[in-house]
């Protein structure tokens, strides 16, 4: 375990793709290959991905503004939702139409944006639930304890090992409901590891986690890669993405708009436009006049842009004067 990785910047995997980094670029060793995946909710096309490959043995970040279809894509890839069209493979096996529990059994486990710790089970029970191929989970063999005690103690041993790594071993007999939000995130990730997955899919692992826990969560994600697992995660925290991701996929309005290594992608004008905003360096407080400060040339430019847009939609209700804007809201 590399507890010192917090101090150093992590080793990035490079050389993951073939040819130029563009949306849908082929990977040297892809673990997921998706083609023509679409999902509509009524008139809204939530996901419309022509081609996507997720590299193996690397940490891939899936970023994009709210409503870009990241979580929907997650749900589709894990079998929690059914697409309108599309095919995809995991580890060379076709996965479309496969129910969620079979997807998990194949070695592709996920966590949820809203943590799903099983509240009235203890931490240890939560962990044991993650183990696969348990004899005692068959209704008939569950009745005869000698059939599953040996396996159960092996599972318990493994669970305690992982819990110790996540510093949750002292809480093993507590109800999961008594854990803090961040600890539940850790528990959910630890539970996912019980199944020895090949690909771990984390939906916003950092959401609602306090800064003290963030670093340990980051280390855990980096450890997954060191142990040979692939990671795909959705995240809004750009510092984290830059810090740990080897590859970044950017989605906007259901489509993949850019791909590449984190530093290149974040300088891509399409990404900045779609996600970071073209005026990321401008302090909005200064623009709106809420904070007194010198308006830079960029701020003036943004203000002019806003005026132009507002003028198009409703010129009567808004004016360039920030104080009046406050009143009308």
């Amino acid at each position: 375990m590399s507890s010192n990785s917090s101090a150093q910047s992590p080793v990035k995997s490079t050389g993951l793709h073939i040819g130029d980094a563009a949306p849908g670029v082929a990977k040297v060793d892809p673990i997921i290959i998706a083609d023509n995946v679409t999902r509509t909710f009524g008139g809204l096309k939530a996901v419309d991905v022509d081609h996507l490959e997720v590299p193996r043995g690397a940490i891939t970040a899936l970023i994009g503004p709210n409503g870009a279809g990241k979580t929907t894509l997650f749900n589709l890839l894990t079998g929690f939702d059914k697409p309108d069209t599309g095919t995809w493979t995991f580890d060379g096996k076709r996965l479309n139409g496969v129910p969620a529990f079979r997807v998990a059994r194949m070695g592709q486990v996920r966590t949820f944006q809203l943590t799903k710790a099983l509240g009235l089970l203890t931490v240890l029970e939560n962990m044991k639930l993650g183990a696969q191929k348990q004899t005692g989970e068959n209704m008939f063999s569950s009745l005869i304890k000698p059939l599953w005690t040996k396996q159960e103690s092996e599972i318990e041993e493994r669970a305690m090992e992982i819990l110790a790594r996540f510093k949750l071993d002292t809480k093993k007999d507590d109800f999961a409901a008594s854990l803090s939000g961040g600890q539940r995130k850790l528990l959910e990730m630890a539970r996912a590891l019980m199944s020895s997955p090949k690909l771990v899919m984390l939906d916003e692992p950092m959401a609602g986690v306090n800064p003290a826990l963030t670093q340990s969560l980051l280390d855990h994600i980096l450890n997954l890669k060191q142990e040979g697992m692939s990671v795909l995660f959705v995240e809004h925290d750009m510092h984290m993405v830059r810090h740990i991701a080897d590859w970044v996929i950017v989605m906007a309005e259901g489509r993949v708009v850019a791909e590449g290594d984190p530093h290149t992608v974040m300088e891509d004008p399409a990404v900045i436009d779609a996600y970071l905003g073209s005026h990321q360096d401008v302090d909005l407080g200064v623009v709106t006049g809420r904070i007194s400060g010198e308006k830079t040339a960029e701020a003036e430019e943004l203000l002019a842009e806003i005026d132009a847009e507002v003028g198009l939609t409703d010129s009567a209700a808004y004016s360039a004067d920030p104080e009046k804007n406050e009143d009308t809201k």
Partner: protein
Amino acid sequence: MDWESILSNTASWLISPETIAYALAALGLAVHFGYGGLLNFGMAGFMALGAYGYAISILTFGLPWWAGILVGMLASVVFAFILGIPTLRLRADYLAIVTIAAAEIVRLLFTTQVFDSVTNSADGLGNYHAGFRAANPFPEGTYGFGPWTYNANGWWVRVFGIGLLIIAALLVFLLMRSPWGRVLKGIREDEDAVRALGKNVFAYKMQALIVGGLFGALGGVVFALPSAVVPSVYVTSLTFFIWTILLLGGAATVFGPILGAVIFWVIMGFLSNVLPAMASSGLLPFMSTTQAATLRFILVGAALMLIVIFRPQGILGNKKELTFVKQ
């Protein structure tokens, strides 16, 4: 008031066939709701299928009594499949709506004139006791002491019912300490999380529905063993009495449903004796003895509300479960 007869009548409820039958059904509901989170409001339907399956097999098809019990159990399995296949993939509240309606359909099918030759419609079925009584290992005579004095048939029904209850309780205990029970409890908490861990949630819910339904059917059989099968018994209020018992004893416990059934029937027995006695000795003015006897149902309703508000985990439930409010 004649306290001696009131207390004696009350004590006899401790091991009455009704108590045993309700305990079995409540145990089934514990598997459904307490462990699996399945909102089954159709326990009366499972019980009716058990009772009618037993009686019709014997009366119409001339099967031996034990085969009648098996037919009743089989009917409940079929019922569980019919209920489960369309609804278990949906959210829990849909199962509640479907089960309450399905149990009513079952009761109305047994009541309707159309099948009168088999079900005897609203009059119900009786006189199917010969086979069961012939298998009675107790010699003729009257046994017991105090309020628990019954004849050989009375003891045979009780001992057989208690035997079934012990087997059922043992099965629930064995299932719930195992990894199978762990998966079921996980499904109760959040089925998507369990699905994401590679468990076939639908199959587990179906298994739980069948196991609990089987106990419900056995409850119906025990209910039918000493007396008769009357369709007006298997109404929705029967389901809610079972729910009262379950919540009273503790939903996610093995002994809670049994303790709940005993307490429920002892209190019901006590009230049904003491309230009319109080009315006739003038302690309950404005009330006739018949009105006083019905007062117990009002008191049971009030008790159910008090339990849910002040002790939602039941008598035997885990105190810690109360500490956390579920989302």
